[in-house]
């Protein structure tokens, strides 16, 4: 019988959030090891049932003293039930027996972002399974979010502007493929590791980007996506065979960017530029973690795109105010990045750095070189950047022309409002 006064001891909110955010992934991964990669469904369902049990029982009996232990014990009991009920799983009895008899301390430990060694390699095995290159990138993302991160189909659909049925189908097919191809539940070998790890890091990058981008309306899901990407990257960085400079650089990038999550919107919910943000709202703890991992990522000879992006992000994150931003370093990083990654968006961002460092004339020269690139033809920020250059040059009519072009290309109301705001700055 749980003790009711545990409510006074710890905030119910913190407890439940930390428990589910941190422990869910580890527990479902441990269950997936027992059931096998061909039965990911079962691991998910058992976890789901255990959480619902908590929802049904705790309000009456109070949160137990060891909520993690309670939750996982219920999951184990439910696993036994399933094994007994369905004869098909009788060959799994030894694995389930191991699971039930395992004597591990489930007391939730460590602060939120810290590496928790409990079942760490199981979580990585599940990540490698969900992000297997044999699946499409969309399938990898959906499967990771559903199975490893515990998102509902509805939440995933909302985050990626898809329909529930489409996501559901995608996940079902992905699991079937894993079953048919007999994808083993394991840490990849040394030779496979670079490719397999790249696949996982790509998924994390996409998850984070989705959470960070302004295209989603739901604030809660946005932060969740970023934090899940960070949580998983922390696991990767804590495991010897996956703790590569590239993984660390990505984590640094995540920490820097996410430090601004609560400063990016104004009262009407519109995006604020870096120069407009209240830097006292930037999460210094995350910036510290970012610096730590940026530092660690410099060990070894590897220099990846993530390193350069993290370095750029570090320049912004450590500038006390916009005027003190180290644009020289940022431009140097973009100069290197553009050589490896000819993406027009990178080129555009580089042009902004040139604007800041060398003034509008130089920036316009760069931008005109990019004008013919197809991806930029429909990208509203391209004419918007040109407009800003002309505005600084004092050429109001050209500025207005470019802002009109940008407004034509803008896809959403927040984007149009942003452009209007900039247009009103023209004298």
């Amino acid at each position: 019988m749980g003790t009711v006064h545990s409510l006074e001891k710890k905030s119910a909110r913190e407890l439940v959030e930390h428990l589910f955010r941190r422990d869910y992934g580890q527990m479902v991964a441990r269950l997936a090891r027992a059931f096998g990669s061909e039965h990911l469904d079962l691991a998910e369902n058992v976890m789901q049932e255990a959480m619902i049990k908590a929802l049904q029982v705790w309000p009456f009996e109070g949160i137990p003293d060891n909520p993690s232990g309670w939750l996982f014990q219920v999951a184990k009991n439910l696993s036994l039930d399933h094994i007994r009920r369905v004869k098909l799983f009788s060959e799994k009895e030894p694995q389930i027996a191991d699971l039930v008899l395992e004597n591990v301390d489930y007391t939730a430990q460590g602060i939120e972002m810290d590496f928790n060694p409990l079942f760490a390699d199981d979580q990585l095995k599940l990540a490698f399974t969900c992000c297997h290159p044999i699946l499409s990138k969309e399938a990898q993302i959906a499967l990771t979010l559903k199975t490893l991160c515990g998102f509902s189909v509805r939440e995933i659909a909302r985050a990626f502007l898809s329909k529930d049925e489409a996501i559901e189908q995608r996940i079902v097919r992905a699991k079937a493929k894993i079953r048919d191809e007999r994808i083993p539940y394991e840490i990849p070998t040394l030779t496979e590791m670079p490719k397999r790890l790249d696949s996982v890091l790509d998924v994390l990058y996409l998850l984070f980007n989705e959470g960070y981008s302004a295209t989603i309306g739901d604030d809660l899901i946005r932060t969740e996506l970023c934090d899940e990407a960070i949580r998983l990257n922390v696991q990767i960085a804590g495991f010897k065979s996956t703790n590569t400079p590239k993984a660390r650089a990505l984590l640094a990038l995540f920490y820097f960017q996410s430090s601004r999550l609560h400063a990016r919107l104004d009262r009407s919910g519109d995006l604020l530029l870096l120069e407009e943000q209240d830097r006292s709202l930037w999460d210094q703890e995350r910036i510290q973690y970012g610096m730590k991992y940026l530092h660690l990522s410099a060990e070894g000879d590897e220099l990846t795109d993530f390193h350069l992006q993290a370095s750029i992000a570090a320049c912004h994150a450590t500038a006390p105010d916009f005027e003190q931003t180290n644009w020289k370093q940022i431009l140097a990083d973009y100069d290197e990045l553009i050589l490896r990654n000819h993406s027009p968006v990178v080129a555009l961002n580089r042009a902004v750095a040139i604007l800041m460092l060398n003034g509008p004339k130089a920036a316009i020269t760069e931008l005109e070189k990019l004008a013919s690139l197809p991806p930029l033809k429909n990208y509203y920020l391209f004419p918007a950047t040109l407009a800003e250059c002309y505005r600084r040059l004092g050429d109001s009519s050209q500025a207005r022309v470019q802002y009109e072009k940008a407004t034509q290309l803008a896809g959403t109301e927040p984007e149009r409002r942003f452009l209007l705001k900039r247009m009103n700055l023209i004298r």
Partner: protein
Amino acid sequence: MANYMQLVRDNLKEYSKYGKTEIADHIEKMMAWSANLRKAGVHRGAEKLTDDPGQILRFKNGQIIVDGPFTEAKELIGGFFLIEAKDDNHAAEIARDCPSLRFGSEIELRKVADVCSEVVMLRGK
């Protein structure tokens, strides 16, 4: 002043759609609601009933028969809260705030009889 039983019937089908964040959120809301019952001094008890639908005992054809209740899982009472309220309206006010309602649960609110006042009423006649 009287005690009221708040019997809660859960909607398990609704829950199956939830992700971990939604479930965590609901648990937190329920804990806050029941903490408020204590803070307001109206909490008189709470128990969770097991999922086992239990038994029904009857006297039939000269003997005690023990049967399954044949109640559908969805109609099972999951648990109850015992609250003290000024009157029916107050009891309803308290029950309305129960977050379970918003997750598809159903609440049956029943007043607990106060035997003393029954007797007093009878004496008065």
